[in-house]
Each structure stands twice: as C-alpha cells, then as structure tokens.
C-alpha cells in the first residue's frame, strides 16, 4: 500500500496494520502496540525523511509470516541512520526531558525487532517484526 507522506493518513496506516494483525490472531493489547509502532515509524518518515517535501509518498507492507507480523516501510527521503538518534533519558527531571527520539525508542520497546537499511539507490527500508502471543 502506498500512502501520501501526510499526518492525515496515520489513521489509515494504523487501521491497515490492525486489520492484518486481527486476522493474524493478535490480541487487542498486541494490536495497540503494533498500531503505535507503525504510527511512530510513519511519523518519523513524514517528519524527518520527507522534511520540507510536500508531495512525497511511501510504501507500507504488512504480512503474517507464520505467527509473526512483519511490517515494512520504504521511503525515498533523506537517509536515516538510527545510530544517530540518541536514546531518550527516561529518568531525567521534567525540566531536562528531551522530547526527541521517543518514537524510535517506543518502536524498539513495542516490537521484537526493528531494523533499518539505508541505501542511496533504493532509499530507506524499515523492517519491524512482532510475534503473536
């Protein structure tokens, strides 16, 4: 499925993921986690990879492989290197809390695996997996 790189389509992306997860036998708690991880991933693409680009789009695929849901997102925006993203300090005081990096952190917590590959030719490819149960 191709989605425009606009926040207005996050609802559709979450619904798309939820439908396949529901058919794949995931429970409601897991489905919420999958939706949140997909939302955070798509938000990062729209906000960072396509920053300042108005008519971009990106591909989202979502498939069951055995008892595991595999979500992939491919964009052709600016290259993304997750090691450049600092881990948020979750115990800092209110005044010192940084608000960046939280999306990626949540994705890693919610999913079993989060993997990015960035290539100048094919763009950014994100693969996230979560096993049922």
């Amino acid at each position, binding site marked *: 499925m191709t989605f425009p790189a606009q*926040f*207005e389509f*996050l*609802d559709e992306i*979450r619904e798309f993921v939820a439908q396949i997860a529901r058919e794949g036998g995931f429970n*409601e*708690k897991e489905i*919420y986690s999958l*939706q*949140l991880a997909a*939302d*955070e991933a798509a*938000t990062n693409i*729209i*906000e960072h990879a396509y920053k300042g680009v108005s008519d971009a789009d990106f591909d989202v695929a979502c498939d069951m492989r055995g008892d595991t849901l595999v979500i992939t997102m491919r964009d052709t925006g600016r290259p993304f290197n997750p090691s450049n993203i600092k881990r*948020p300090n*979750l*115990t800092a005081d*209110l*005044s010192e*809390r940084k*608000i960046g990096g*939280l*999306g990626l*952190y*949540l994705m890693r*917590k*919610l999913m079993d695996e989060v993997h990015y590959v960035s290539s100048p030719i094919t763009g950014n490819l994100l693969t996230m997996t979560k096993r049922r149960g």
Partner: protein
Amino acid sequence: MEVTTQEFKHCDLIKVTGRVDSSTAPAFSKALDKANENGHFKIAIDMSELEYMSSAGFRALLASQRNCKRYNRGELVLVAVPVRIREALELAGFTELFKTFDDPITAVGSF
C-alpha cells in the same frame, strides 16, 4: 479527536476524546496553550474517552506540564487514563511526571 475545556474555580478540566497522533496533536496542544494563556496553570486532562495517543500527544503533555509547573504556579494531572495509553506512557517513562486520578471529581477536588 475532540477537545473540550470546562473551567472550574480552582482548575480547568480538559477532556480529550478519540485519537491523538501527529495529525491531531497540534489542536490538542493549542487547547492546553489556551488555558495557560488565560492564566490557568492547574489543569486536569480527562482521558476517559481517549482511544489512542502516540508520542506526539505525550510531547504535548510534557510541554504543557513544564509550562504549568514553572514558578510553582500549577500542575497538569491525568484522569481516567485508559489501560493501553497508560502502558505506553509507562514505556516512555512518563508516568512519574504526572499525577493520575481515577475520576474527574477527585482530580478537580485535588487543586
């Protein structure tokens, strides 16, 4: 998403319903800012009919909490946080930054 603000003598009760994500968080932030602009820094957020909140919503809460607590002039508290949203807030390490209440009456009464 819908946001409604009810002004009480000692605090504002802001009810947010539906889904808060990067698309709707700006409108949520605006409602929080508006309370602050009116000089109201004691805020209870009623989440009882909130279905979903991404980190975009967490950021809005964090920014507002900072603003409310400045100069000890107030605080933002959360009310009736649905279980899924509570779990996500916990993952993000946000639960210790906000007092939580089970119902609006207790929250409003705490100010």
